[in-house]
């Protein structure tokens, strides 16, 4: 990546530097640390070293030019032939019609130790007029004294940002001096200036490195249920719950955010006995996804048929449920069947028993993503994803520990990718 060469700030009060000489020519090979150009400020002349190795390209400032600090004047590229010129000016947003002129900001000075604002008594220079550094620019009144403040720099009074009588915080801008005579000098009140600052568009952020595809940020989980079912509660809340026979885990199941304090016990007392409200909140559920790029289900189902298993659902239930559950339900849009899982695939059969796991097969649907929250039993959803599949496992924390949920999803994904390997 090319490296921008900018005008460095060599002194505290320096805002521009003059390029005395280029010590490398365009196209020259440059090592990090090589003297690149010579710069003159009002105090000194200095050689500026290259901050990267490469070839000097895109030189846009010539010897003798005065360049503002921070401006890009050249580039160090990987090849000598990079001829895109460096931007002549830093990329600043186009100023709006009533935007403030660019120039040196004059701020409200601190005249006393304990002063935090000053009152603008009046301007001593007409708007747009030229001033020298020692010319008195405005008058300020503090709680102790009234003082005249010099401009401190040469330029034209291009903008006044406070009117007589207004209080301005120490350090806040009160005026802008420009090097050139301003075409449209601006006079604002301190109020306007504050508003304008609040409305000003944020500086364009450097483009984020295209490292990861943007993923929708997940809301931070409020209920941090630590592993092992540890509930976050204050010592007093815990003691009172114990004394009064209240079960804090009912608050967890209700999705009530932790940590619990004494006030949360009232919520718990108000909850009807023995009835846990819906666990459908995202806060109290686990959701894991896995991706299978090339499921080999067709080959598997053909093989199963060869083994005498004609019911493809039974074959699928056997494949995915074995070793995990005794009963598994397969749901599709419109119908559902439960299967008892036995060791041999040919023995897997429809059952009336409550399933331990639901396999929600949405491969043939248009549904791209689910986030339905935990249900009464864990649900594993199969979704189409190109030529592959997305697997989503959703369950409540008390149904499957994090470890068990990960293991289940991981094994199921592995079996979908290589079903025959699992069986053999």
């Amino acid at each position, binding site marked *: 990546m090319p490296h921008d060469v900018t005008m460095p700030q060599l002194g505290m009060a320096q805002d521009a530097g003059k390029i005395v000489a280029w010590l490398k020519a365009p196209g020259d090979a440059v090592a990090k640390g090589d003297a690149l150009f010579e710069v003159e400020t009002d105090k000194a002349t200095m050689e500026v070293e290259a901050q990267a190795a490469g070839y000097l390209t895109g030189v846009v400032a010539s010897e003798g030019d005065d360049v503002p600090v921070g401006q890009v004047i050249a580039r160090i590229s990987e090849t000598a032939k990079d001829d895109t010129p460096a931007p002549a000016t830093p990329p600043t947003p186009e100023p709006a019609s009533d935007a403030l002129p660019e120039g040196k900001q004059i701020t409200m000075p601190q005249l006393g130790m304990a002063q935090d604002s000053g009152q603008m008594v009046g301007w001593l220079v007409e708007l747009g007029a030229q001033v020298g550094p020692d010319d008195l620019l405005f008058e300020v009144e503090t709680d102790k004294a009234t003082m005249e403040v010099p401009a401190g720099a040469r330029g034209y009074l291009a903008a006044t940002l406070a009117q007589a009588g207004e209080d301005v915080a120490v350090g806040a801008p009160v005026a802008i001096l420009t090097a050139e005579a301003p075409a449209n000098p601006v006079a604002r009140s301190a109020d306007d200036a504050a508003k304008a600052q609040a409305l000003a568009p944020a500086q364009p952020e450097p483009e984020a490195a295209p490292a990861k595809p943007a993923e929708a940020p997940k809301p931070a989980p409020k209920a941090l249920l*630590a592993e092992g079912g540890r509930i*976050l509660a204050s010592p007093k809340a815990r*003691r009172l719950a114990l004394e009064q026979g209240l079960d804090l885990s009912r608050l967890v199941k209700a999705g009530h955010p932790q940590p619990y*304090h004494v006030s*949360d016990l009232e919520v718990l007392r108000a909850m009807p006995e023995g009835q846990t409200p819906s666990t459908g909140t995202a806060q109290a559920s686990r959701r894991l996804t896995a991706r299978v790029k090339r499921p080999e289900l067709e080959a598997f189902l053909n093989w199963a048929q060869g083994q005498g298993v004609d019911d493809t659902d039974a074959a699928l239930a056997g494949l995915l449920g074995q070793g995990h559950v005794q009963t598994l339900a397969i749901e599709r849009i419109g119908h559902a069947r439960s299967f008892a899982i036995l060791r041999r695939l040919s023995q897997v059969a429809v059952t009336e028993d409550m399933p331990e796991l639901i396999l929600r097969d949405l491969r043939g649907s248009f549904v791209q993503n689910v986030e339905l929250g935990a249900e009464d039993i864990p649900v594993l959803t199969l979704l189409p994803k190109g030529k592959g599949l997305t697997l989503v496992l959703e369950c409540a924390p008390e149904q499957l520990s994090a470890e068990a949920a990960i293991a289940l999803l991981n094994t199921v994904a592995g079996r979908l990718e290589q079903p025959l390997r699992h069986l053999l």
Partner: protein
Amino acid sequence: MREITLSQAVNEAIAEEMRRDPTVFLMGEDVAEAGTPFKVLSGLVEEFGTDRVLDTPISEPGFVGMAVGAAMTGARPIVDLMFGDFIYLVMDQLCNQAAKQHYMSGGKLTVPMVLRTNMGATRRSAAQHSQSLQALVAHIPGVKVAMPSSAYEAKGLMKTAIRDNNPVVIFEDKLMYQDKAPVPEEEYLIPFGEANVKREGSDITFIATSSMVQVAEKAAETLAAEGISAEVIDPRTIVPLDEATLLASVKKTSRAIVIDEGHQSYGVTAEIASRLNEKAFYHLDAPVLRMGAMDVPVPFSPALEDITVPTPEGVAANARKLCAGEMIYAA
């Protein structure tokens, strides 16, 4: 009731005790004609003469060592240490000698000495004259530590300190010398180890020492307007510490912030917070917070100095979070 400054209260306490007991005397740098840089002792040399109000050379270890010896042999010295920061210079005399004589002599010797000194930042006195070093002394068994929070406490605690047969260090906040408070004309003493409930409340307890009592009271005032009821307790002496009053309050409110102007780490706030944790754990509905001075040398820059010490706004902000059940530190 009449109101007098903290400075006058200290002066009165010492004068009364010197009139009552001829073995009481004062010594230190600039205590006689100068009456100390803070003018706390003005007028005492006129009444008691230079035999009982002694100006010493500028040698803290020297004159504190002399006071320990005088106390061991029957006198009741009040030693003036011009700045609390100079405690470092007298650590051996105070902590190795004064604090241990009674114990090591099998009870045969006592050291009835008062070391009065000061503490407190925000006086623009920079890092070597702004420290609050009460924790250093409170750490050592055998020394009592009093921290008056107003003129009333300053007088009552000083009189008790002078009559105590153990070494006592009194830390006066140097920014409070001109603060006035009602002080009775008639004699009174404030016993050590008795905290003062300055303001009653039900939602949170502020335990604050010295000038931090004012900080806590201001915070409590702000919070009252928002419907949060804060109790403010001044322990008055940190050694001995009135645990019973502190624990009773915290068991009532379930929440506490401990505020002291010493550095936060390994400080007075840490000690008190830890005791609440040990002894009132099952009554706590929020973590006990410490608020001390930042762990940096006190800056000379006024803007920086002011933010290194606890403020009413900071105390109120923390109290709001604790009362709302918000976690100040992540789980």
